[in-house]
């Protein structure tokens, strides 16, 4: 070690280490294997495998992020921002350098009850924000994804996460009012209304809106240190589960529901899933994957389940709306059950051993599905509604050929104006053969997505590179030019994103 020789003969690593310590304090910088081994890989990046990084740094403020980026830009050191360290392979550090874990920046800076938004720091997690709202603002609610409480709110919104208010608000990016972003040169930009009136975070702007320069870029154009996100009134709610023989039939019911005026009808969330998802979403149900049929409907088990969440201000309103829901679902040949009734019907000792309908009330942690093998990956995409059932059936067939089950889900977005679908495939991280098979399976599934005109969502670098090759050349050129303009040294999350 050459830490105390006046800086003359410092190794490159030690020199950078000392500068990082001077910015954030030595407690928040590490280059030890105890940290690097964990941060080198995205824990849901089955295809991406292990990357590499040299430092893990936990900054505590926008100013510290500015200083760090100035240093990294000067030294041309890659910087990979992350919060949860598990993002479908998007947060694998590919070219070494610094992993910037924003978890210390987890404060709520402002809640505006009247304009209904929260101004939060870039590292806040779902657990922290949801807890804060429940304790301090029980009348406001947050759009929440299928994520664990330790996952980051801002990255999810920046990458178009599907949320439990998607029916009324669309994907996560549509819940962003504005951002505070540190650019690679250390400058700070504000977006949305705040770009023009820095204290006004109430919405996107009527002037040129630069928010989009930082959305969907996988942290490649700037580090988002603050975000203003939309909140919604928390009205009394009712949740139902519906089922249908198969996905094709189920999607027809979903269509009828949103065409009846989904959000106007009070539906805030309309999601669908297959039998595997139902079992896994029930909260690590003790499901033995080997016993789960590949094609549930062939053995008489419905392979389509839908969750309907509805809000109403009065009980009379709820009853009237419930009547409409029952009528639509039953007329279309589906079955509908109040979620609470399904709960009560399951004896305590049997809970967790079968469908328990637990997911719809709060977020289902689909992530638990991965625990069977300890790793996996999700592929999400935007597809036209009439392709969803076909997508499910074709990808299930592909997965069967690889001996894999897929967890399939879909969400109706923005009143039915578009749809998001997701597929989760688990793998055994101790079994190289299984990992190889899973990767092949994921690639084949992705081919199906492309054939059906599905648009890739949250792509890891492997899928992103393919999109760059096959996307509209002019569009891809503009995307690359924006990246180069904002990050000429390519220090931010290099190798990732589109």
């Amino acid at each position, binding site marked *: 070690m050459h830490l105390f020789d006046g800086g003359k003969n410092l190794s490159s690593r030690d020199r950078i280490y000392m500068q990082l310590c001077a910015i954030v304090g030595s407690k928040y910088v590490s280059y*030890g294997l105890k940290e690097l081994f*964990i941060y080198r890989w995205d824990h849901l990046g089955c295809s991406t495998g292990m990357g590499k990084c040299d430092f893990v740094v*936990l900054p505590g403020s926008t100013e510290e992020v500015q200083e760090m980026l100035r240093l990294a830009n000067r030294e041309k050191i890659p910087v990979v921002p992350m919060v949860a360290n598990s993002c479908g392979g998007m947060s694998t550090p590919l070219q070494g350098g610094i992993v910037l874990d924003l978890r210390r920046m987890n404060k709520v800076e402002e809640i505006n009850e009247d304009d209904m938004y929260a101004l939060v720091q870039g590292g806040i997690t779902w657990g922290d924000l*949801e807890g804060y709202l429940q304790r301090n603002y029980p009348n406001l609610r947050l759009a929440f994804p299928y994520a664990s*409480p330790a996952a980051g709110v801002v990255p999810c919104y920046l990458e178009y996460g599907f949320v439990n208010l998607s029916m009324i608000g669309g994907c996560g990016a549509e819940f962003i009012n504005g951002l505070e972003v540190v650019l690679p040169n250390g400058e700070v930009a504000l977006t949305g209304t705040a770009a023009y009136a820095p204290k006004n975070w109430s919405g996107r702007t009527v002037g040129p809106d630069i928010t989009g320069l930082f959305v969907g870029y996988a942290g490649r154009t700037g580090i988002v240190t603050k975000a203003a996100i939309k909140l919604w009134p928390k009205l009394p*709610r009712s949740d139902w589960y519906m089922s249908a023989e198969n996905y094709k039939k189920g999607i027809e019911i979903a269509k009828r529901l949103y065409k009846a005026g989904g959000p106007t009808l009070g539906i805030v969330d309309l999601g669908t899933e297959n039998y595997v998802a139902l079992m896994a979403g029930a909260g690590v149900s003790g*499901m033995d994957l080997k016993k789960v049929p590949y094609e549930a409907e062939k053995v008489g088990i419905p392979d389509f389940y839908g969750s309907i969440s509805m809000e109403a201000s009065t009980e009379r309103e709820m009853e009237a709306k419930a009547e409409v829901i029952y009528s639509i679902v039953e007329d279309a040949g589906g079955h509908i059950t109040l979620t609470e009734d399904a709960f009560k019907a*399951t004896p305590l000792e049997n809970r*967790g051993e079968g469908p328990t309908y637990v997911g719809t009330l709060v977020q289902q942690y689909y992530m638990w599905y991965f625990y069977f093998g300890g790793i996996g990956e999700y592929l999400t995409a935007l597809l036209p509604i009439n392709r969803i059932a076909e997508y499910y059936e074709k990808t299930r067939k592909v997965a069967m050929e690889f001996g894999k089950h897929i967890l399939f889900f879909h969400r109706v977005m923005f009143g039915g104006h578009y749809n998001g679908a997701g597929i989760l495939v688990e793998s055994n991280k101790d079994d190289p053969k299984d990992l190889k098979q899973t990767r092949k399976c994921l690639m084949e599934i992705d081919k199906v997505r492309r054939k059906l005109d599905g648009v890739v969502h949250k792509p890891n670098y492997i899928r992103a590179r393919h999109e760059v090759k096959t996307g509209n050349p002019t569009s891809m050129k503009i995307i690359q030019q924006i990246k180069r303009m904002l990050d000429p040294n390519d220090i931010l999350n290099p190798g990732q994103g589109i």
Partner: protein
Amino acid sequence: MSKKKKIRYAFKKDYEAPVKEFYPRDIYLPGRGIGKKVTVPDTMGEFERYKPLDYYKDLLRLCVKCGNCRYVFRDWNRACPSGEFGGFESYYLGGKNVLLWGLTREKIKWSKPIVEVLYHCMLCGNCQVQCQIPEIHHYATEWLEAAREKAVELGIGPMPGQLKMGYHIIKEHNPHMELHKKRLDWLPVSRESLPKKAEIAFFVGCTPSHVQTHIATATFEILKKLNVNFTILNDEYCCGSPAQQTGQRKIAIDCARHNAKELEKTGASTVVTSCPGCHKMLNEEYKKRYKLNLEAEIVHSSTFFNNLLKKGVLKFRNNIGKAITYHDPCHLGRYSGIYEDPRDLLQNMPGVKVIEMPRNKQNAWCCGGGGGVRAGFPGLSSFAASERVKEAKETGAEAIVSSCPFCYINLSDAIEQYNEKMEVYDVVDLINMSIK
């Protein structure tokens, strides 16, 4: 049109209430491991407890590092003192699981920095309770403890302060750097005045014997006042828990063998302990891990006195006149499933108002006293205690009451260190005050 079902709807603002009702969080099946709940069945079959680290290596891969271990399940409160103190991912259970997976699969090598992280943990079990992956939910503390044994085996554990503590347990049979010959200094009567054999044996524990002697004295006085036929051990050693928890298993076994013999000499059918650590050690480790011939029933003093309260033998008289909050010791709560006995006692005391902290029972934030952390990493220990004191103060209570001498020390120290104004009591202190 098809025949319509009766229309059913809900009208609830607390979206999570039905889920909480559906997954009751306080179902404990004694003897089946920490937090073993019927709602989370194993999928990989039953595993054994008390096994070496390698035995659990197939379970280590199951962790997807989702981070549920950082939060109280569906209550959105932080759960892990080690993670909150250490900051980096490695300090949470998820990070430790990944490191142990890497170690057992030989992807990384054992080293002192990694071992230091593994010892940065009170083994409080809160993370384990919050994790919903069945095998981790049931066995995580098994492999966290086994990892420490492995570190000791490799000569890179325990931490220096814990090693010193281990030596002192060998030499003077207590972890507090006190002389063994002073162990009975607290005793208000001569040892000889107590019977050699009795139905009840009071296993005092090192902390009440040497440090928080008021806990030993109060327990003794209550037993006397209630005319309980009891004795104490002729030559009590440390129960071995501090050694066991820091991976120094051989020291713990020696303690266990000695105490088991001493307990046998008393002829007691029931052993009462003041310390939840001793309770867990005698009740579980002596009997199940070390398979010692210990037939006596082991009960914690709060259970023992609550039984006497229910039988009408224990009667409270004096008004305590305090608003208090109860802190669940990890070894009594999460490890032994005893949440209600101390609460029953407190709620029945005249003039005691019990106010719960948000994180209570199985979700209780650890005081930072256990797992050898007080000896190994005083900073972490003090951080955990100060967070708990803050939480206690926010309830508006005047006093924080626990039923563990170690919690008592750590919470009192934090109050002193941070100049807080809050009283600290053990449940037996209040019982004694109320029956005087």
